[in-house]
C-alpha cells in the first residue's frame, strides 16, 4: 500500500471533524472521497498533506509515518495537493507559477535551470495552457485556473496526488476535459485521492469510493456499491438527480418585471464580456441564466448590481436610477450573493449574519435570523465559528444566508450550488420553494448546473459569448438545450 491511514482523529474544540477514519490507497488507484458538507473530507486531505496535525492515529506513506510532519517535508516525500480554492501567485506569470512548483527547496539557487524551463512548458502544454505562459493568472478563465493548479501539482511528479473539488464550478464539458486530464495522470507509480460533489464525475473516474459522514467513514467499496448504499443515499445523495419536481408553470408574458435589463454591455479593456443584453426577471418568480463559464453570467450580475461599469439601462421594480451605484442598488433591495462569497472571514457566523441584517430593527433582525437558521440548520450549530474555518459548502450556505438577511426583494445568486453536497441541493430547493411561495422575493440564479436550474426556474435565459441565445419558460427549454454543451 502506498498510503495507509489508521484511526485518524482531528478535533476542533469540541468538534470531532475527523473521528477514527481508516482507509488505504495503493499505487495505480484513484480513490474517491465523498460525504456531506462538513463531513471532514478536506480535513482528511489537510491531515495527509501536513497542513493540519492529527490529534491521534497514523498516516503511513510507503510504510513511513508522515502524520504531524510539516507540509514541506511531506511535499518532499512526494505528496502534492490541489486546494479546494485556486491559489496562484497573482503577481507572477502563469509560467513563473510553474517554475515555483518545480524549484528545489534550496537557498542558493540563483539561476533557473533550462531543465525547469522545459518541464514547465511541457506541463503547460499538457494542460492546454501553453498560450498563456506569459499571462497573469487573473487573465485566465475559471477553468484555466484549475488547469494551472493541476499543472503545478503534476510537474512535481507526486506519488500521491490529492485533489480537493477539482470539478467545482466547471461546466459539464469542462469537467469531461478535466477528467480526461486526471485519467492521463493515472500511472502505476501514483495514487490519486479525489474529493468532489459531482457524483457523476467522481463515479466515472474512480476505482473505489470512501464515504464519510460527521467525521466517520460510512462506506468503502466499489463506486456503484457505495452510491447504492441506503446510508449514503440518506446522508449524502438525498433525493438525487433522478427526482423531477419541476413545477409546470410558465409566467404570463405580461407579468410585471422585477428587473428589466435593456441593451446592457460590459467591456473589460478590449474584451467584450456582455454584448447588448436585454432580458427581464418577472416578479415573484425564479429566473435562471445558464451558460458555460465565461459566457458572461457573472458580468451580467455585476452589471445589474453596479459593481462593474456598463452601458444600457436596468430597471429595478420599475425604477431606473440614473447612476448605478452599488451601495444604492443594494439598499434598494437588490442583493447579490457573489460567486466568490465575500464573507467576512475573520468574523463568526453570527457576526456575518448580523452584518447582513444590519439595516433591520432588532426584533425583525431576530426573526430573520431565526428564519435563515431554520433554512440552514448547520449555521445555527456553528454561530460562534469563524467563517474562515467553515468547510467549503458551509461557507456557501452562509453566503446565501447572509444575503437573505438583507431581506432582498430581488436576490441574485451566482452559482448557488457551487461546492454543495447533493443533499444540500434538496435543502436549497426547499429554500427556493419556500421563498417562491412567499411571493415576496424574485430570484435570479446564474447556474452551471443545468439540472438544478431546470428544476427550479420558471424562466430560463441561455447565454453564450456575452449574448442571450435563447429565452423562454423552463418547460420549453428542450428546444434551447441544444445550445448548451
Amino acid at each position: 500500500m502506498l498510503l495507509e491511514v489508521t484511526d485518524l482523529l482531528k478535533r476542533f474544540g469540541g468538534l470531532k471533524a475527523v473521528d477514527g477514519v481508516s482507509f488505504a490507497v495503493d499505487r495505480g488507484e484513484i480513490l474517491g472521497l465523498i460525504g456531506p458538507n462538513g463531513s471532514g473530507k478536506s480535513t482528511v486531505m489537510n491531515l495527509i498533506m501536513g497542513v493540519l496535525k492529527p490529534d491521534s492515529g497514523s498516516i503511513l506513506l510507503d510504510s513511513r509515518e508522515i502524520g504531524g510532519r510539516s507540509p514541506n517535508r511531506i511535499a518532499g516525500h512526494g505528496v502534492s495537493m490541489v486546494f479546494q480554492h485556486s491559489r496562484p501567485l497573482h503577481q507572477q506569470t502563469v509560467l513563473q507559477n510553474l517554475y515555483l512548483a518545480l524549484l528545489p527547496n534550496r537557498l542558493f539557487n540563483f539561476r533557473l535551470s533550462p531543465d525547469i524551463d522545459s518541464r514547465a512548458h511541457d506541463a503547460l502544454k499538457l494542460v492546454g495552457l501553453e498560450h498563456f505562459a506569459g499571462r497573469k493568472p487573473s487573465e485566465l478563465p475559471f477553468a484555466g485556473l484549475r488547469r494551472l493548479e493541476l499543472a503545478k501539482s503534476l510537474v512535481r511528479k507526486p506519488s500521491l496526488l490529492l485533489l480537493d473539488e477539482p470539478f467545482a464550478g466547471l461546466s459539464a464539458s469542462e469537467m469531461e476535459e478535466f477528467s480526461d486530464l486526471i485519467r492521463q495522470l493515472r500511472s502505476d507509480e501514483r495514487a490519486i485521492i479525489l474529493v468532489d460533489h459531482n457524483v457523476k464525475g467522481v463515479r466515472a473516474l474512480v476505482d473505489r469510493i470512501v464515504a464519510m459522514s460527521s467525521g466517520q467513514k460510512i462506506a468503502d467499496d466499489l463506486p456503484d456499491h457505495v452510491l447504492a448504499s441506503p446510508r449514503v443515499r440518506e446522508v449524502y445523495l438525498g433525493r438525487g438527480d433522478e427526482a423531477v419536481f419541476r413545477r409546470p408553470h410558465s409566467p404570463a408574458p405580461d407579468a410585471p418585471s422585477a428587473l428589466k435589463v435593456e441593451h446592457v454591455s460590459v467591456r473589460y479593456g478590449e474584451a467584450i464580456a456582455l454584448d447588448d443584453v436585454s432580458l427581464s426577471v418577472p416578479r415573484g418568480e425564479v429566473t435562471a441564466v445558464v451558460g458555460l463559464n465565461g459566457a458572461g453570467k457573472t458580468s451580467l450580475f455585476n452589471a445589474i448590481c453596479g459593481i462593474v461599469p456598463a452601458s444600457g439601462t436596468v430597471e429595478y421594480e420599475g425604477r431606473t436610477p440614473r447612476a448605478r451605484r452599488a451601495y444604492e442598488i443594494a439598499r434598494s433591495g437588490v442583493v447579490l450573493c457573489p460567486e466568490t462569497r465575500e464573507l467576512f472571514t475573520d468574523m463568526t457566523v453570527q457576526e456575518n449574519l448580523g452584518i447582513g441584517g444590519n439595516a433591520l430593527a432588532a426584533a425583525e433582525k431576530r426573526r430573520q435570523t431565526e428564519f435563515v437558521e431554520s433554512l440552514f440548520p448547520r449555521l445555527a450549530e456553528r454561530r460562534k465559528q469563524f467563517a474562515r474555518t467553515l468547510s467549503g459548502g458551509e461557507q456557501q450556505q452562509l453566503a446565501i444566508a447572509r444575503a437573505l438577511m438583507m431581506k432582498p426583494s430581488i436576490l441574485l445568486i451566482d452559482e448557488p450550488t457551487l461546492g454543495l453536497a447533493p443533499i444540500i441541493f434538496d435543502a436549497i430547493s426547499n429554500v427556493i420553494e419556500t421563498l417562491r411561495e412567499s411571493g415576496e422575493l424574485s430570484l435570479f440564479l446564474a447556474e452551471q448546473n443545468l439540472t438544478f436550474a431546470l428544476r427550479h426556474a420558471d424562466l430560463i435565459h441561455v447565454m453564450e459569448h456575452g449574448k442571450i441565445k435563447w429565452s423562454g419558460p423552463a418547460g420549453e427549454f428542450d428546444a434551447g438545450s441544444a445550445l448548451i454543451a
Partner: protein
Amino acid sequence: MTVPRSDRSDTGPWPYIVAAIVVCLLAAVPFLGVNAYLLSILTLGLFFAVFAMCWDLLFGYAGEPNFGATFLIGTGAYTAALLSSNGLASPAVCIVAGAIAAVVAGVLLALPALRLRGPYFGLVTLVATLILRQVIILFSDYTGGEIGIAVPDIITISSTLNFYIALGAAVLTALVLRLLVNSPFGLVLEAIGQDPLNARVLGFEITKYKVSAFCVSAFFSGLAGALMVFYLGTASTNVFVDASVGVQVIIAAIVGGRRTIVGPAIGGVFLIAAAQYLHPLGSLSEMGVAVVALVILLFLPGGLLGATRLFRKAR
C-alpha cells in the same frame, strides 16, 4: 479560449538601460560643478536609498513589515563607531564588522520574531529598536548615550570621494537585490510573502528563506549604517536608532514604489532631498515632506516608479 498576443510580460532591456544612464549621470555629478552642499545631500540620500531598498526586500517581497529598520542600521553604525572610537580597528575593518554585527543581530531577532505573522512581526521589530535605543542610553559611559560617539577616523575628507562611496554602496545594493529578487530565490520569497501555506505545500521551508532575506537586508543596512558613521563622524541615536527614522525609511520605500527595489532607492534620495530643500521653511519642512508623501501615497499607489509605468501606458 482566446490566444494572447505575446508571451512576454516584462518590458525588455529598457529599464536596465535607463538605470545604467542614471548611474552614469550620478557618477558625473561631481564634475558638473555642483556645490558641496548639494553633493552632501545626495550622499545622504544615497545612504538612505540603501536603507529603503533593504526594507523593500523584506516587505515588498517576503511580505514582512519591518518597523525596526534602524535596529539593523543602528547595530551596524554603533558597532563601527565603538570599534573605531576605542581604537580597536581601522575604518575598513569597522565597516565590515558593522555589517556582520547587523546580520548577527538580525538573525537573533528574526528567528523568534518570524514565527509571528504580519503585524505582530512588525511590532517585535519596533520593540527591538526601542530596546536597542534604551541599551545605548543605559550604557552611556561607553556609547555616549544620547549625545553619541565621535569617531576619530575618517575614510576621506573629500566630499567627492564620500559621494562615490555612497553611490557605490547604493549601486552594489541595488544590483545584488535586483539579482536576488529576479532569481529563483526571489520567486520563492515572493511566494512565501503572498501565500505561505501554499509555499509550504509546494515543499519550501519558509523560515529558511525568510531568515536569509533578513540576513541580506541586515547586511546592507548595517554596511550603509557603518559607512554613514564615518561620513558623518558621529553615531547618535537620533540618526541611527530611532523609530521615526524607521518610519521615514518605510515612507521612502513606498513613495518610490514598493516591490521594485529601484523605486525605494529613488524614494530614499527624493525624501532626503525634499527635506533639505524645504528646510528654509523651518518646522514647516517636515510637514511639507509629509504632505508630499501623502499625496504620492494617495494618488500614485504604485509610487514614483509606478507613475512612470502609468505614463508609458498612456502613450
